[in-house]
């Protein structure tokens, strides 16, 4: 797309790349080397940009004493579960909005999206008693359900805009062959929509993965705690702060997700705008 044959263009490209790259990767670099530093080196006023002694102490602690593996399991379970629930509902709703015409279709959709602007913290005031009544408080299932708040409307919208471009002829042809609408969706539309579906899965997964506000409130028991609150309570709380431990724990917690992202990247990058680009 860009023509880099001139020196000027090369320099401009190079400088921009370095600046943005530095912005994105320097904090990541800092996080990684900090996790390997000893405490003594970590809290020095003049920081070192390369560990003088490499120490695995923080990782050892995170893996053995910090309860990280349990929390990671909980987080993956809840985030994957909520991503699946969200995506499934969003597939049907998005398809409905895109391919069927009925009164109130647009207002309902607009309303769903607009409601995303209302402070999530306030919704908690009602969700909490509701969950208590249903026995969902302090359960992973409850947390999973609460994450519908974060991602369902946008997920629905993303899939709606993708399904809108699936040619009507494809559907009509299948219909003419007598296939039921549900069957058309499942066997004809979904197979060509893998990329946007993966995208929406990842999008809702990340909302749950990064949440602190809901998980800190809706989960009490230690054995159900997720990574974010876990790191906060174990390493960065009011009475104790262990920076190296926090860094090591977050690196370990990120590894499975990074690996999954690398694998799904192709779908993700294809899918992200498959819907948005007409």
């Amino acid at each position, binding site marked *: 797309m860009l023509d880099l044959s001139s020196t000027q263009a090369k320099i401009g490209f190079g400088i921009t790349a370095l600046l943005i790259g530095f912005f994105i990767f320097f904090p990541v670099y800092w996080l990684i080397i900090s996790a390997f530093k000893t405490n003594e080196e970590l809290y020095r006023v003049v920081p070192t940009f390369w560990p003088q002694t490499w120490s695995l102490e923080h990782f050892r602690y995170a893996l053995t004493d910090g309860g990280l593996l349990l929390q990671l399991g909980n987080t993956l379970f809840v985030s994957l579960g909520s991503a699946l629930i969200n995506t499934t509902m969003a597939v049907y709703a998005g398809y409905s909005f895109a391919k069927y015409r009925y009164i109130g279709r647009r207002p309902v959709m607009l309303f769903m999206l607009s409601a995303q602007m209302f402070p999530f913290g306030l919704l908690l005031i009602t969700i909490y008693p509701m969950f*208590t009544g249903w026995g969902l408080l302090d359960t992973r299932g409850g947390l999973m359900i609460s994450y519908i708040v974060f991602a369902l409307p946008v997920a629905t919208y993303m899939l709606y805009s993708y399904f809108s471009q699936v040619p009507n002829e494809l559907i009509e042809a299948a219909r003419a062959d007598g296939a039921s609408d549900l069957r058309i969706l499942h066997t004809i539309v979904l197979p060509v929509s893998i990329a946007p579906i993966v995208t929406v899965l990842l999008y809702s997964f990340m909302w749950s993965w990064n949440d602190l506000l809901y998980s800190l409130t809706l989960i009490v028991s230690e054995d159900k705690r997720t990574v974010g609150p876990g790191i906060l309570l174990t390493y960065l709380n009011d*009475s104790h*702060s262990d920076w190296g431990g926090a860094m090591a724990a977050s690196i370990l917690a990120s590894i499975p997700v990074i690996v999954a992202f690398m694998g799904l990247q192709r779908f993700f990058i294809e899918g992200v705008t498959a819907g948005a680009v007409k």
Partner: protein
Amino acid sequence: MTKITQSLAVCLAAAAFAVPAQADTVEFMNWTYTEDSGRDLIQSLMDGYAEASGNEVEPIGYAWSDINKNAFLRARTNTLPDIMQVQARFLPTIANIEQVQDLNEVFGQETLEAMIPASFLAMGQVDGRQVALPWIAGTIGMVANQRVLDAAGVTEIPDTVEEFREALVQVRDNVPNSVPYTMATKNNASILLDYLIWSWTFGADVIDAEGNADVNSPEGVAALEFMVGLMNDRLAAPEIDRPDARRLFGQEASAFYFDAPSAKNFAADFSGQGEDYAVNIIPMETPTLEEDGTPAAIQWGHVLVMFNEDNASPDSAASGFLMNLLSDEVLVDFALVKGALPPTVSGLDSEEVKSDGYMTAWAEAAVAPRANPIAPLSNGGAISDIIGEEVQAALLGQKTPQEAADDLQARLEEALAEE
């Protein structure tokens, strides 16, 4: 056939009655359990009671900063625990919850008065009701780190505000990269405590006995000017909250700060040297304007609240657990480990407490602690934010001390009128 069923039913019923009363579960909501240093401690308290009584104790742990929010949400849903640990200064807020039990009615006022000295019993009273019992008690006062003082060449613990300032200058000049006094400058709730103590030291009440604001009197402005002066001379620093102060203090980058007696434990933790480090932590009298003045300190403590009417009998499992926590064998060790006093008559009288040098020194340094005047207000949270914001504006140079004091006076008068 019917006969057999009938007799079977009778047998079953008899069996059901023969079984000893089912063990009760006491839900104990607290934050100490979520702290690395406190988990084992609380676990052993709970195990101890379970073993002695046959009842179970289930811990409900929330972080300190999250526990009030959750008490409130639980009150809305009738899922309050049986017993809850409450920071004494938040008790008036928690006491608003309907399910809070008046412990005079549970245990009898006389029993409690015989068990706990009146001054400590008062920690758990709101509007004439005994809504809580004191668990561990102490004051918020000043601590000094002996090793930092040595490094700076400060030989005597400062007595007056003037000497305090001189000591700070010595620390600044001799200990590189230090924050001589880690005054709270970031978080509203923390700023409040430092501000109260200095205001009292300079003779301003902040909120007087009649409930009026007293912050822009000459004394009030002088206190704020003193605090701002420390900032300007780099004797205190921006971006310090209590946890930062604890870390810097433990890492020997700060000589003085205000905290509860648990300061000792935090310093031990952050120094990386463990309990041995505690000898370096000196509880001291807050510097005063004149020699022989009364040093300012704030009452501090954790209290225990009981919820739910079902628990309101001395025989309930919750009552049993509460009394177990306050029994000498359990309480004295716990309080001393937390660096605080056991607030029962027999606990205070115990050999361990009397022979604990740190606690004795702490008690001597805090002769006349005052209650936090913001705590009993129904809109205490909002008022604490107002004070924090205006004081911070002065400390960061956004307003002059006089402007900040005037604005604070006006905002407090408005907020107190709403109270």
